[in-house]
């Protein structure tokens, strides 16, 4: 990794740390618990590796599997956020239902274009948010 990139990341990280401290100082006990769960848990690297190797017949190194596991966790978060929005829009409460998730996934596909297909059907938006 270039030294420039490394030191850029270093300063970004320290700034993020300060911001996080302010946020966490204002957490309720419930917030703390939930945040702990978010921080502590991750997708198992071995399982991610298995999925890639068995479905695509591709050899994948452990560090690369770790990276995929990492950004896939972000994807899970994006799905959860969308599903929660769907639930709220319908005025429903309680644990998320499979339907909320499927609708969220459908919306995700629509907004981003299928990753596999690579191309969205047509550009729907004139103004991007």
């Amino acid at each position: 990794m270039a030294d420039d990139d490394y030191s850029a990341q270093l300063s970004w990280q320290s700034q993020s740390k300060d911001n996080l401290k302010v946020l966490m100082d204002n957490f309720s006990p419930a917030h703390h618990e939930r945040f702990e769960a978010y921080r502590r848990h991750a997708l198992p690297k071995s399982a991610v590796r298995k999925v890639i190797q068995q479905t695509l017949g591709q050899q994948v190194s452990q560090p690369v599997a770790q990276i995929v596991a990492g950004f896939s966790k972000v994807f899970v978060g994006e799905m959860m956020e969308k599903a929660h929005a769907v639930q709220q829009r319908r005025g429903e409460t309680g644990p998320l239902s499979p339907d909320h998730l499927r609708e969220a996934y459908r919306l995700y596909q629509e907004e981003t274009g299928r990753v596999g297909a690579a191309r969205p059907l047509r550009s729907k938006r004139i103004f991007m948010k």
Partner: protein
Amino acid sequence: MAPRPSYTSSYTYIPSYRDTLAAASSGGSRGVGGKKSTFRGLFAKELRNLMYGFGDDRNPANDTVNVMEEILVEYIVDVCQTALAPGKKARLSIEDLRRALSRPADAKKLARMEELLFMQEDIKRARAQFEESDMNQASYQS
């Protein structure tokens, strides 16, 4: 005459939950969708905690966890397939993934990847420094 099984072509979108239902009822797997059903439960335990962390109930519904797992597996396969797309690749590389995550919609995921690469680099540098001081110590003693 028995109905001909339908195979999914290179990539047509079929919600994977339908595939797993079909696979379960027909007793066989059907192309790409079928393979995904064999990963049942691999992620469930951690996903449950993650879903709570991301805002769900302390006890997420089992059905929802299962659907989340299906969607997750489909996503991982999608991204890696896209990353490998441009021809015969021996191994999935970071550069391939960087390209696959280059769209605006994937900005967060790309940023997380760079952050993780930084952490891996951080550990590498720390280890190199530690080993160097270790070797210096050894040479003083000899």
